[in-house]
């Protein structure tokens, strides 16, 4: 059957390049491998194999870029005959999110990862020199594995190898009856669109940075493999340090962006939740940093080579393991935001890839283990290498604890088989991780403060003691001041506070006094300073993180039917805000003013306008006022689940972080509430009562004055206002209202309604029947809509800026070191031998 309206060319081209990229990567890996094998025996052949390998890798890169272009063309032109475009984009999607929907899906994010490998691979190809053949053989091998992820080839009737992004909609849903008609495309008019919660600038920048960080772990991995393969352990040092520094900076930035995204625009209630997906990116970073430090030890002293290999090789394997954890759906029960799995095929596929890489790594390590250069003598206790080594081991232990706790779903079947217990994640994950990691933070904090003062091989104990003593004392004073001011009373966290303060003081002192602030040399102390600031920021912002929104609706809404145990819930951290009614929230008065909906495409986002004001407790004068606009939307892509974005007021020393937990009435139920009709009430004389669903109104009489600012009387208008007082259900007067009855030019009737927002009350002066000068019947129409309220949670994060600043400082430190290393490398290259 011929289908009408399909554009098959970009898909066919894309698929062609998918195949080409796979074949080219394979060819490149094979050629580089042959180049290594013929290196000694036949240099001429080796040289041509090398050129073949380069050609293959360049062709592979060109293919990957072409796949990118083809898929981007499909998304940009809204070719919904392709499943990927239909699934991840829609006509109404703003242009800036086209890239985001590119990597919303499994296939696209694999391609992003592959793409970065290509870019980094080209750099390695140009710079690796004597190690090019071996590093590139490994890089190309990994590219072969990654290329299979988007192959989408059937190996049997049921087994599909990878998923191609170029599959047609009618192929992915073969049984749908719509595809029986040749003109099915005229029915497929729009795509599913990008998940609204991902429609965010973070979604545009976070994945590329994070994937660059993941991809960069391949390069130290490749260099370590190359060194082991060659059995030569000198030339790999410098490039591996450089790449590890780059990697630490980029992956660190990526993790920070993830935290900032969670903090700024997702409702995880903070920046870090020890969620498996977050852990999956943190664990490789920890092993990478540990490996970088042992490598520095090896460079300076010749020690710790074996541990360096273990750590740096493990880092890349952990990235694959992370992919396995987060993409196969194995975390299903335990993670907030793990990808939903693509089923068994991907699970086995990833397991095979991990197995291949693991076998290569372990086999090489085992084969070379005995021959690795080691130093027989013992380290001095006051040597830098000794403490760096210990710090690295501590970081490694930290990563092991996080990895074991995150991997529960992986090992729990085995544990169940052994112990009969069905293990579940800890009921309080924050506590579970914090209780252990606080000690890691303390030890690494103190080490990062003191280790720079020591020299490699041995240090002068006297100078060391003096310098460390001074800085530790200042750090202690600082910690005491902060701990007292911030009421940090848990002793473990007091020690951590000291470690962080010591780290800050010691590294500033070291940078300025010892290194005389020579910029090029500041890398390590700046990175350590940043790390100590991160510790301080985490401690201050989470230890004193507290809610200021409490459910204080009080007796009016709480009839006291609950048991004593449930009353203990007084401190529930959700506050009910009725529209137009000010409620106390911490030191503020918060008022939910109104909401507005933006209707773009199918997704209705509702913005809530919440007014905060703070009054001086004595003078009652307003000292500060601001608006926050948290929003909420019903996610049409899923099952209509309510998704919310927080809104935050930033101060220099703390943040007020608010998000909506529940909405009722207002724009959400717009359309529904309009169906509630007005009820007519007749009043004759002042004192007549109109009963409302919550409270009542007393009629005070008629008046010729028109005080409503929305109406200005014309010369020939006849205006009457009905004076009414509204009382709530406890008999308290709420508001005087005066709806108007207007005879415009004495001909046309006009009603100007009055409202009581807090009671959702609309009052209209409908009609006036004059029986005699003393007897007048007034018709009042009343509409009381369903209540309109939101449930808001507001948290205060003190000193969170210290955390963000710390991460930036740390990343900056990595780049200083990297810059210094590269400039020395170019300088030494330029010198005549």
């Amino acid at each position, binding site marked *: 059957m011929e289908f009408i309206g399909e554009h098959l060319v970009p898909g066919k081209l894309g698929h062609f390049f998918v195949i080409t990229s796979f074949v080219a990567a394979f060819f490149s890996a094979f050629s580089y491998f042959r180049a290594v094998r013929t290196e000694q025996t036949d240099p001429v052949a080796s040289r041509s194999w090398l050129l073949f390998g380069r050609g293959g890798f360049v062709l592979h890169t060109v293919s990957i870029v072409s796949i990118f272009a083809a898929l981007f063309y499909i998304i940009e032109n809204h070719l919904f005959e392709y499943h990927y475009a239909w*699934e991840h984009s829609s006509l109404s999607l703003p242009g800036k999110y086209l890239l985001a929907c590119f990597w919303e899906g499994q296939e696209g994010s694999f391609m992003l990862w592959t793409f970065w490998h290509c870019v980094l691979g080209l750099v390695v190809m140009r710079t690796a020199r004597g190690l090019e053949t071996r590093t590139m053989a490994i890089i190309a091998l990994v590219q072969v594995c990654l290329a299979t992820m988007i192959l989408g080839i059937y190996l049997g009737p049921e087994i599909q190898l990878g998923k191609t992004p170029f599959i047609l909609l009618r192929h992915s849903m073969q049984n749908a009856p719509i595809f029986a008609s040749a003109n099915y495309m005229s029915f497929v008019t729009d795509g*599913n669109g990008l*998940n609204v919660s991902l429609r965010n600038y973070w979604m545009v920048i976070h994945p590329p940075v994070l994937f660059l960080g993941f991809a960069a772990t391949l390069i130290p991995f490749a260099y370590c493999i190359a060194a082991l393969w060659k059995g030569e352990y000198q030339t790999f040092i410098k490039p591996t340090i450089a790449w590890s520094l780059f990697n630490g900076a980029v992956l660190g930035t990526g993790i920070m962006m993830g935290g900032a995204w969670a903090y700024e625009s997702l409702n995880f209630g903070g920046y870090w939740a020890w969620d498996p997906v977050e852990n999956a990116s943190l664990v490789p970073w920890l092993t990478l940093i540990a490996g970088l430090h042992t490598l520095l030890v090896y460079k300076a002293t010749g020690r710790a080579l074996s541990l360096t290999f273990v750590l740096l090789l493990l880092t890349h394997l952990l990235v694959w393991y992370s992919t396995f954890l987060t993409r196969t759906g194995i975390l*299903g*029960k335990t*993670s*907030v*935001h*793990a990808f*939903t799995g693509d089923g068994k095929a991907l699970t086995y596929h990833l397991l095979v890839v991990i197995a291949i890489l693991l076998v290569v790594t372990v086999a090489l390590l085992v084969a070379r283990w005995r021959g690795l250069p080691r130093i027989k003598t*013992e*380290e001095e*206790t006051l040597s830098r290498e*000794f403490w760096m*080594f*210990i710090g690295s*081991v501590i970081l490694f*232990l930290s990563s*092991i*604890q996080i990895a*074991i*706790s995150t991997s*529960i779903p992986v090992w729990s079947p085995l544990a169940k088989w052994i112990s009969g*217990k*069905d*293990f*579940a*994640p*800890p*009921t309080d994950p924050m*506590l*579970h991780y914090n*209780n*252990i990691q606080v000690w890691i933070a303390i030890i690494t904090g103190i080490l990062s403060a003191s280790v720079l003062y020591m020299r490699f091989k041995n240090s002068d104990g006297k100078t060391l003691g003096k310098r460390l003593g001074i800085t530790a004392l200042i750090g202690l004073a600082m910690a005491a001041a902060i701990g007292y001011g911030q009421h940090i009373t848990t002793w473990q966290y007091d020690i951590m506070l000291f470690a962080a303060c010591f780290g800050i003081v010691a590294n500033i002192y070291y940078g300025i006094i010892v290194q005389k602030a020579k910029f090029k040399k500041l890398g390590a102390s700046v990175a350590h300073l940043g790390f100590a600031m991160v510790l301080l920021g985490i401690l201050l912002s989470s230890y004193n993180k507290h809610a200021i929104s409490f*459910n204080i*609706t009080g007796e009016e*809404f*709480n*009839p006291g039917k*609950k048991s004593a*145990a*449930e009353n*203990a*819930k007084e401190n*529930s*951290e*959700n*506050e*009910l805000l009725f529209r137009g009614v000010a409620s106390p929230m911490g030191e503020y008065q918060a008022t939910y003013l109104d909401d507005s909906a933006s209707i773009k495409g199918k997704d209705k986002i509702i913005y809530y306008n919440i007014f905060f004001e703070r009054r001086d407790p004595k003078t009652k004068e307003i000292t500060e006022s601001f608006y926050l606009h948290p929003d909420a939307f019903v*996610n049409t*892509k*899923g*099952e*209509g*689940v*309510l998704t919310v974005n927080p809104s935050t007021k930033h101060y220099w020393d703390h943040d007020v972080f608010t998000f909506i*937990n*529940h909405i009722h009435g207002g724009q959400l139920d717009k359309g529904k509430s309009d169906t509630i009709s007005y009820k007519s009430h007749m009043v004759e004389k002042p004192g007549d009562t109109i009963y409302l669903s919550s409270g009542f109104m007393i009629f005070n009489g008629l008046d010729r004055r028109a005080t409503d600012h929305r109406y200005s009387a014309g010369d020939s208008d006849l205006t009457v206002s009905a004076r009414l007082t509204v009382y709530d259900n406890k008999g308290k007067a709420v508001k005087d209202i005066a709806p108007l009855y207007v005879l415009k030019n004495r001909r046309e009737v006009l009603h100007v309604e009055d409202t009581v927002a807090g009671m959702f009350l609309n009052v209209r002066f409908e009609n006036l029947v004059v029986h005699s000068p003393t007897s007048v019947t007034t018709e009042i129409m009343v509409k009381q809509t369903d209540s309109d*309220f939101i*449930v808001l949670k507001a948290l205060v994060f003190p000193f969170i800026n210290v955390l963000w600043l710390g991460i930036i400082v740390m990343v900056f430190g990595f780049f200083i070191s990297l810059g210094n290393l590269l400039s020395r490398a170019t300088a030494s290259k330029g010198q005549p031998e």
Partner: protein
Amino acid sequence: MKKTHIVLLVLMVAAISVLVSVFGSFSTYETFASAAKQPGKSYYVVGNLQKDQEMQYDPAKDPNHFIFYAKDKAGNTSKVIFNGEKPRDIEKSEQLVMMGYQDGSTFHCSRIQMKCPSKYKKDMVVEGKSS
């Protein structure tokens, strides 16, 4: 024996004791009945919503109080009090992972994770404050 070895040995001992304590803080998946054996202790219970039984939620009275009935994997039904707001579209959920403790015939739940039938929707976690 080298100093490094001593230190590593100490660290190993520390690591092992940490691991043991880590395992102690892992929770387990239970049923309503098995959770009732340790009243007050928090567990995870996997079950599904009993749609034919009444759900009570009145946010105007208390936005953090939601009552429903759930059936666990063993087939027993229990009343569940969730100290949080009613998860939107809980009616559509396929599976609930509830964290909390059993007290008599009531399961006091402070966190719910829902699994929804849509393949493309992420799992959703709702947290409440436990009393």
